[in-house]
């Protein structure tokens, strides 16, 4: 087992600029406060459909989780939320600049991170950080960090998986800091280290005889 233990930090879902500036790539974070889920359904409805966002942002929350929970709405209107796990964030890049401008988001939580280009061009200017979930699939652990499901918005329009869930967290985690205020990217740092070894691993293998359009053979490419 690895010996160096990552730093553990408690962070508010409406964090101060100082708290965000102190975060380092690879730090482990636990969250307190309100967060909301928003993915393609919410982005399309709010940004392309120009629907009014049913929360006061960033006053209520500055944390956007790319997530759909395993949850149900009971007959009496109460909620049952079991596990929560992120979905891959790279495909939401096109909506994020406008989302930042509209909502003042400071923390984006998801799976797999974005590119350093995304971080430098719109995370850093908005003073925002990307947190990655761990695993992926520590859904049960994250579920334990739910103090209360406050509300679900747009369930009628978007369905349970795409709806905007508002969750009150109490030490929800673990999450890993995957971007910083320089716009550096944890995953790119790791990929660069791994890429050095790839020529050796690939030695003696045979590339595809039949090529396909739209693909690459450059192993150092980020592919997202």
């Amino acid at each position, binding site marked *: 087992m690895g010996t160096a233990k*990552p730093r553990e930090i408690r962070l508010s879902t409406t964090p101060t600029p100082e708290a965000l500036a102190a975060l380092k790539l*690879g730090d482990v974070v636990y969250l307190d406060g309100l967060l909301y889920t928003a993915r393609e359904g919410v982005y399309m409805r709010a940004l392309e459909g120009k629907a009014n966002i049913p929360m006061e942002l960033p006053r209520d929350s500055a944390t956007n989780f790319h997530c*759909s929970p395993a*949850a149900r709405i009971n007959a009496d209107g109460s909620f049952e939320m079991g596990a929560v796990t992120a979905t891959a964030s790279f495909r939401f890049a096109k909506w994020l600049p406008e989302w930042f401008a509209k909502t003042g988001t400071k923390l984006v939580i998801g799976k797999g991170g974005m590119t350093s280009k995304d971080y430098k061009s719109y995370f850093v200017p908005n003073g925002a950080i990307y947190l990655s979930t761990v695993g992926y699939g520590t859904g049960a652990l994250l579920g334990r960090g739910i103090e209360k499901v406050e509300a679900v918005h747009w369930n009628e329009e978007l369905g349970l998986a795409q709806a905007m869930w508002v969750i009150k967290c109490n030490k929800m985690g673990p999450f890993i800091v995957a971007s910083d205020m320089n716009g550096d990217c944890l995953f790119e740092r790791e990929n660069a280290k791994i890429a050095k070894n790839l020529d050796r691993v690939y030695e003696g*293998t045979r590339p595809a005889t039949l090529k396909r359009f739209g693909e690459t053979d450059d192993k150092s490419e980020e592919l997202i």
Partner: protein
Amino acid sequence: MISIDLIQKTAETLMDKAAIEIPDDYLEGLKGAASVEDGDLSSFVLKAMLENYEAAKEDRRAMCGDTGTPRWYVKMGNETQIEGGPIALETALRRATSNATNGVPLRPNRVHPLWRTDHNNNVGIGAPEIEYGYEPGGEWIDLITVHKGGLFGTDYRMLFPSDGIQGIKRFYLDSLVAFGKRGLACQPAIIGIGLGGCKDTCMVLGKRAACLRTVGDRNSDPKIAELELELKDLGNSIGMGAMGFVGKSMVIDTHIEVGYCHTGGMQMSVHAFCLSSRRAVARVFADGRVEFRTDPDWFTDYQRRETVEWELPSQEKSA
């Protein structure tokens, strides 16, 4: 005759077990990987996953929030009769899927591809998939549910006989590296490889190799078994671990299934079954007995048969 109510009740229990309880063979495999992992971040991730499995079982909550796309593999002995016939069986499995989605709860992942219609119950056109297999002899039904996750970790390449093992290794590495970056494949995983068949059957073989065989199980062809181990080691030598961080745990096991293919080709598919390898199995008998297990035991000698005829066990022949 097997009771349809018992089938539905058992299927609901299986949905719950698959979502919540990590199968022992995978858990032991992951513990083994965690014990040799020396990448700091990878090591932290594996420890968190091991804690997560415990939390899921203690709280009876799904281990991952993405509870995958539930599907059914159904296998029957040659003498099996089901109350209400195959239509009742399919209805029971659709009901169990819907009830468990609301009950556990699972994430209602299944939507219409174009209209994004969500029935909030994981049931819709072609969902859940129900696939069938048969065995010579016996009056029982195996209900196997697999909730494979995710959008990433699966790919197909048409190889040719001249590409040989070097071509197989190349596509295997290409798939692991591409989907392993940033951990999109949710590794370390059980990797299934389909070789041969036609394009569709090649995908089916690879998916079944990943989802219907347990960690440590080897193909009955000794040379394929050897290749499985070689590919497992190759995957773990990439230098990539959990979440795509520097490490050595990419693959918990590699399984290969083959099917006869067109003489000019060597179809290949690669499938990664994620960190939450959701599978659960039960055998239901006509006398009302139900035996739960986690090994689907799908690939019997009969499933891998090469011959025209298959001799039935003598008992069944005389019956």
